[in-house]
C-alpha cells in the first residue's frame, strides 16, 4: 500500500498558494516532510487527513480516493495535529476510551484491552487516572500518539510532533513512532532536520508550496558528498561571502559566524571540506529554491 499524491494544488482565499502541483509517492515506512515554517506542510497534511479540500489534484491510499472517500480513509487514518488540547477535567483513560468508541471500537472488552495496551505503550499507564489538566507537554504528545494508534491506522500523519519537547521526551516519542514503520505509511512533518535523519527512510523537502527534493536521505547525502565547505569568518565579512559564494547556512560557533557553502570545486581561501549533513541538504535546497524563485 502506498500513498500517492498527484498534482495537488491549493490556493487560499487570500491568494497564498499553499500547494502547487505537489506530487509524491510515499511507501510504507517513515516519511519525513521537511520544510521551513509556512512552507505548506500543514496544508498538505490536513488535506491528506481529509480536513481540508484541495483545488485540484488527487490523493490515493491504495484503492481509496482520499479526497472523495473521506470516510473510508478516516477508518484507516491516525492523525496527530500540530496543536491540540485536551479536556482538562477527565483522565487519560476515560478520554482514550472515548476516542476508541469514536473510532468504531465498540466491543467493550476489546476496547478495554486496547486502551490498556496503548497506555502502557506510551508509558501513561501509571497516570491514567489523573486529570489531563496536569499533563506535561511530553505526556500530552504521547497521549496524542496513543489516540492516533487506536484504530490500527494504515496511514499515520504526525504534524510537527516534537516541537517544544525536551530531548528526553523527544527520544521517547521517537521510540514509539519507529516501531510503526513496518506496516504503516507514516508521514512526519517537521522543520527539525535531525528528526528526519534519525527516523525516516524517505523524505521530501517542501518550500513555498512546492516539493523541491525527494528521495532517500542517504542517497541525497551521497549527492552532496565533496561539495560542502565550511569556514569561520568575522561578522563584517558575511555580506562579502554571501555575494561571492553559495552560502547555504550560517551559524554562530563560539560567537563567530560559521558558514557552509556549496561548491563543486574546492574554493580554498580557508574553507575546509566537510561531510555533508542532512541539514546542509535542507539548507541548500531551500537556498536553491528561494533563489530560483526570486530570479
Amino acid at each position: 500500500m502506498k500513498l500517492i499524491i498527484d498534482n495537488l494544488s491549493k490556493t487560499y482565499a487570500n491568494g497564498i498558494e499553499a500547494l502547487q502541483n505537489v506530487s509524491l509517492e510515499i511507501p510504507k515506512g517513515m516519511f519525513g516532510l521537511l520544510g521551513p515554517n509556512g512552507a505548506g506542510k500543514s496544508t498538505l497534511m490536513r488535506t491528506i487527513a481529509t480536513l481540508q479540500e484541495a483545488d485540484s489534484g488527487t490523493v490515493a491510499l491504495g484503492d481509496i480516493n482520499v479526497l472523495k472517500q473521506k470516510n473510508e480513509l478516516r477508518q484507516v487514518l491516525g492523525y496527530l495535529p500540530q496543536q491540540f488540547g485536551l479536556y482538562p477535567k477527565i483522565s487519560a483513560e476515560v478520554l482514550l476510551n472515548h476516542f476508541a468508541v469514536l473510532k468504531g471500537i465498540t466491543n467493550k472488552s476489546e476496547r478495554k484491552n486496547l486502551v490498556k495496551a496503548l497506555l502502557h505503550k506510551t508509558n501513561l499507564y501509571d497516570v491514567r487516572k489523573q486529570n489531563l489538566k496536569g499533563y506535561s507537554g511530553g505526556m500530552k504528545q504521547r497521549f496524542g500518539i496513543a489516540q492516533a494508534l487506536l484504530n490500527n491506522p494504515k496511514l499515520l500523519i504526525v504534524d510537527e510532533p516534537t516541537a517544544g519537547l525536551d530531548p528526553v521526551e523527544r527520544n521517547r516519542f521517537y521510540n514509539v513512532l519507529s516501531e510503526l514503520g513496518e506496516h504503516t505509511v507514516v508521514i512526519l512533518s517537521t522543520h527539525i532536520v535531525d528528526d528526519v535523519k534519525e527516523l525516516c527512510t524517505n523524505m521530501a523537502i517542501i518550500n513555498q508550496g512546492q516539493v523541491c527534493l525527494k528521495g532517500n536521505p542517504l542517497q541525497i547525502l551521497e549527492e552532496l558528498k565533496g561539495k560542502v565547505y565550511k569556514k569561520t569568518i568575522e561578522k563584517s565579512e558575511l555580506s562579502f561571502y554571501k555575494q561571492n559564494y553559495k552560502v547555504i547556512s550560517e551559524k554562530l560557533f563560539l560567537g563567530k559566524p560559521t558558514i557552509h557553502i556549496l561548491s563543486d570545486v574546492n574554493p580554498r581561501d580557508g574553507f575546509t571540506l566537510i561531510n555533508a549533513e542532512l541539514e546542509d541538504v535542507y539548507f541548500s535546497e531551500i537556498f536553491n529554491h528561494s533563489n530560483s524563485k526570486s530570479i
Partner: protein
Amino acid sequence: MWYHIFKFEIQYRIKRPDTYVFFLFLFLFSIVGVDFIFQGTDLGLMKKNSPLVVAKSMGAITGLFMILASMIMGVSVLRDFEYNIESLMFSTPIHKRDYLLGRFLGSFTVLLFVFSGIPLGMMLGELMPWIAADELLTFNGLVYLKTFLLVTLPTVFFGAALFFVTGALSRNLVVVYTQGIFLFVVFMLTKAITNEFWQAILDPFSLTTTTFITKSWTTLEKSTQDLPFIGALLYNKLFWFSLGIAALVYGYHKFNFNVVKEKRSKGKRKQISKTNINDGNEVIIPDAKKQYDLRSKWAQLKQFSWFYFMGICKQPSFWAIVICGMIIILVNSVNLGTVYGVDSYPATYFIVEELQETSIFFFIIILVFYSGELVWKERGAKLNLIYDATAMSSFIKLAGKYVGLNLIYIVLMLALISSGIIFQTLSGYYKYELHVYFYGFFLEILPFLALYTCVAFFIQSVVNHKFVGIMLVITFFIANTALGAFGFDHDLYLFGGNTIGTYSEMNGYGHFLKPYLFIKSYWLLFGILLLIIASLVSVRGIETNLVKRFKTGKYRLSKPLFKLASIVFLMVIAIGSFIFYNTNVLNDYWTASEATAFRVDYEKELKQFEYLPQPKIVDVNLKLELYPSTRDYTVEGYYILKNTNTEDIASIHIQKLLEGNITIDSLSFEGGATRDNQYKKFDYSIFNLNKVLKPGDSIKMYFKQNFMTKGFESGSSNVNINKNGTFFSNSDLPTIGYTRKYELNDPSDREDYNLPLRSNKAERENVNELVNARSGSDSDGLNFEMIIGTSKSQTALVPGELLEQWTENERNYFHYKMKIPIINFYSIVSAEYEIKKDQWMSQKDSITTPIDLEIYYHKGHDYNLDRMLSSMKASLNYFTKNFSPYQYEHLRIMEFPRYAQFAQSFPGTIPFSESIGFVLDIDDENDVDMAFYVTAHEIAHQWFGMQVEAANVKGRHFILETLSQYAAMMVLKEHYSEDKLLQFLELQNETYKKGQDREALKEPSLALVENQDYVYYAKGAIQMYQFQKAIGEENVNKALRRFLKDWNTRNGVLKTKTDRYVTSKDLLDYFKEVTPRDLQYMIPELFESVEALKIITDVKN
C-alpha cells in the same frame, strides 16, 4: 497607561461583529419592548410612554438581557486566557490596576453603547404604526434618557462589575453565565420578601421598587408624573451600585497576575512527574475490531450521550443552577392556587405548575448556553481536528451531544421534582402524585426543550459564531412567541405547536393529550431533520465558509443517514398531513384575522334584526344523550314559542352556536315553515312560517342538535364537553334572533372596520333592553323538563327535581323537571361524582317540604364539603328569614374541571370550579373562609338572579352581583364575625384599587356599572357594608324584601304588571324608603357617584 489599555479594548471591540449584533438586537427588541413587557396586561389610563411604564419596561428589558452584559463583560479578561496570550500580557510591565481598570472601563463603555439600544429602540417604538395616538403622551426624549441613567445604568453597572470579576477570577465562561441565573434567583427571592420596603430596595431590576414608590399615586399621576429619584428608588440604586463597587474591589484584590491558577492540582502534578519510565517496546497492541455498522453506531451514540452528559455534570456551575432551582421553589411556592387571598392545599398539580413557571428560565438558560458550549466543545478544547479526522459520523456526534443535553434537563427535572416533594412533605401534605410530576415535566416541559434544543444546535452549527448563535436562538424564541401572539398559531407552522392545556384532577389531560402527542411527534421529527442538516453543514476540518460547507455537505450524507433522513422526512409529511386533515379538513381552522372579518360581517349584515319582534321560549322539553368518552352528544325535543308581542310574527330567526362541532340535524315548526338560507354562513336561518303567529299564540319548535367531536383541532379546543366533567349551558342550544356577543368588541378593531362605537351595556332608559333580562333574551321564564343520559360511571345533572332515574343499555338516565317556571338559564353537567347529602328545613315554617342539599364532588376533594354545606344552611336560613322563601326543593353544588375558575348559579344548581373552593387550605385563624363565602354568594343568586331579574342595561350587575355580595357578607358576618368580614373587605379594597389602575375608560358609579367587576364586586361590597352600617342591617333587608316582593319575575306585584325589568334606579328607591332623612345624602354618594370611597379602615374605627 490604563488609558492605553482602555483604548485598545475599545478598538478591539469596534472591530468585532458581536458588538453590533448585540446593539442591534437590543435596539430591535426595544422597539416592541413596551408591548412585549406589558402584553396581556391592561395599562388602564397609563400611556405606553408614561414615565412609570418606560421605567418598568426598561427595567424588565435590562433584566431579561443581563446575559448580554455577561457575554461582553465576562470575556474581557477571560479572552486573554482563551487565546493563551496571558503570559505575554502579564509579563509586560503593566500594573494590575491599569490592566483591570482599562479593561473594565473599555468593556463597560462598549456595554453602555450596546444598552443604549434600549432607549433608542423604545423611542423609535413610539412611531410604530400599531401604536394608536391615544396610547401615548407627547414624545419626551428626556423621560427615556433620565430613566436610562437612573434605572438601567446602576443595574447594568452592577451586572458589569459582577460579570467582569467572575470572568477574571474564574476564567470560565460558563461560570459567568451562571451569574445571570444567580441574579434572577435574587430577583425571585426578593418577591418572597413580605416587607414591601425591603422588597423594593433589593429588587435588582427595580420593578417592585417603582410599584412601591407609586403606590399612593392616583391613576392620573401614574400616567404622567415623573418618577422621583428619592426614597426607595434612590436607596435601591445606591444599594446595587455599591454592591457593584464592592464586587470590583473584591475582584481587584483577588485577581492574580500569575498565569497559572494555583489550585489543588499542585499535589497531583508532583505525583505525575514521579512515575517511572519504561520504554514500552515490549507492549503488543492487541487487535480490536473496528465496526461501522448500525449496532456500533448505536453504541457510539450511547457512549457519546453519556460522555457529554458527564462533561456538564462535572461543572460546578450546573449544580449551582440545580441548587438555585430547588431553593427558589422552596421559597417561592408558599402561595399556591391562591383564590381570594386563601391558598390551596399543595396538591401536586399546583406544585408542578409553580415549578414549571419558575424553572423555565433556568431551563432556557441551560438550553441556550450549553447548546452553544456543546457545539463548540471540541473546538474550545482544540481537539476538533482529532475528532474530525476519525471515521465518526458527524450526525452521531451531534446526536450524542443532543441526547447528553436532554439528560441534563432530566437531571434538573428530577431535582425539581424532589424539591417539590420536599415542599409537600414540609407542608404536611403526603399525597405525592408521581405521575402528575412525571407528566408535568416529561410530557409538558421536556418536549418543548428538546425541540428548541434542535433549533439551538442547528443555529449554532450553521452560524459558526457562538455568541451570535446564542443571540439568534433567543431571537428565535421571541419571534416564535410573537408569531403566536399575532394569531398565527396553527400547530403545523407555529414552531413546537401549542401547549397541552390545563391539567385537571377531574379530567386529567383529557382530550388534549392525543393531538398534543401527534403534534409534538411531528415537530420532534422535524427537529431530527434539523439536526441532520446541522450535522451535514457543521464545520468539519478547517473550512468555515458557510457556502462551501453547504456545498460539501452533500458528500457527507452517507447512505444510512440518507435513509434515516428520508424516513424522517416522509414521517413528517405523513404526520403533518394527518394533523392537517384533523385540524383543517375535519375541523375548521380560523386565523385571528379571519375570525375578526367574520364578526364584522356578522354585525354588518345581521344587526338589522337585533330588535326584530320574535316569540319567546315558554317551554323547554328535551332529551339529551351525552357520550363522554367520545365527547359527543345529541339533544332533541322542542321549545314552545309564544308571541308576546302585539303584532303578528311571520318569520322566526334561529341562530345555531358558531362551533364547527355542532350541527342542527333537523328543525321544524308546528304547522310548517320554509327555510331561508341567505345567512347560512353565519349559521343564521330565517324560517318563514306557513301560518303567521298571532299575538298570544304559541308554536312548537322541534329540533335535533348534534355535537360531534371529529378528530382534533389546532390550538385550544372545546373544554366544555369532556371525558369527565362536562359543563355547558343552554346558550349552546339554538337561540332566537341576532346574537350580540358575536360582535367585535375591541374599540380600535371596530374603528379599523368602520363599525360604530359599542358600549357594553345599554343606557338605563333604553326601551329595547329594558324588556330583556339578558342580552338577546329569548324568554321571560319557561317550564323546563329534560331527560339526560350519560355513561354508566357518570351522574348527569340539570336543574329540576329528579323525577326518575334508571339504567338502560349500560347508560345512566335521569329525568328532571322544574315545578315552577325558571329563567332561561340552565346548565348541563355530567361527571363521575361522589355525593354528599343533607337536608334543610325552613325555620320559619315547619310544614314546608324539606330542601335536599347535595354536593357532587370529585373523589378526594372533600376538604371543604362541611364548610360548603354549613354555608348552604346558613345562607338558606338568613335569606329565607330576611328576604323571601326559597323557591325550589333542591339545592345542588356540582364540581367541574378547572378550565374555568368560577362558580355560577343556575336555578337550584351551582356548578362550582374545581379550583376555587374544593381544594382551598383554609386556616380559620388567618384566612377568611372563602369556600363558605363563595357558596353563600352563589346561593344569594337564587334570589338575586333567579327570583328577581334585572334589565339588561347599565346597573344590572349592581342588582345581581352587588346584592349577592351584600347577602353573602351578612351570612359571613353572622356565621363568623364582624372581624372576618372586615378582613374580607380589606381584600375587596385591594381588588378595587387594582381594578381602578387597569381601567382604560372612565370608572362608572355602581348604579350605572357595566362589566367592571372591580366595581360591582369589590366596590359594591364595600359600599353595601357602609350602607348597612349606617342605616342598619334590618333596614337594608326590609328594602330588599320589598324589592323582591315587587319585582319577582314570576309573581312580583309590579313585575306582573309590566314588560320591563327592574333597574338600579328602582332599587335605589327602595333604599331611600328605609333611609332616615339625615342619611339620605349617603345614597347618591355611595351608589351614584364615582368619588373615591371612604377608606375601609374608617369603618373599623
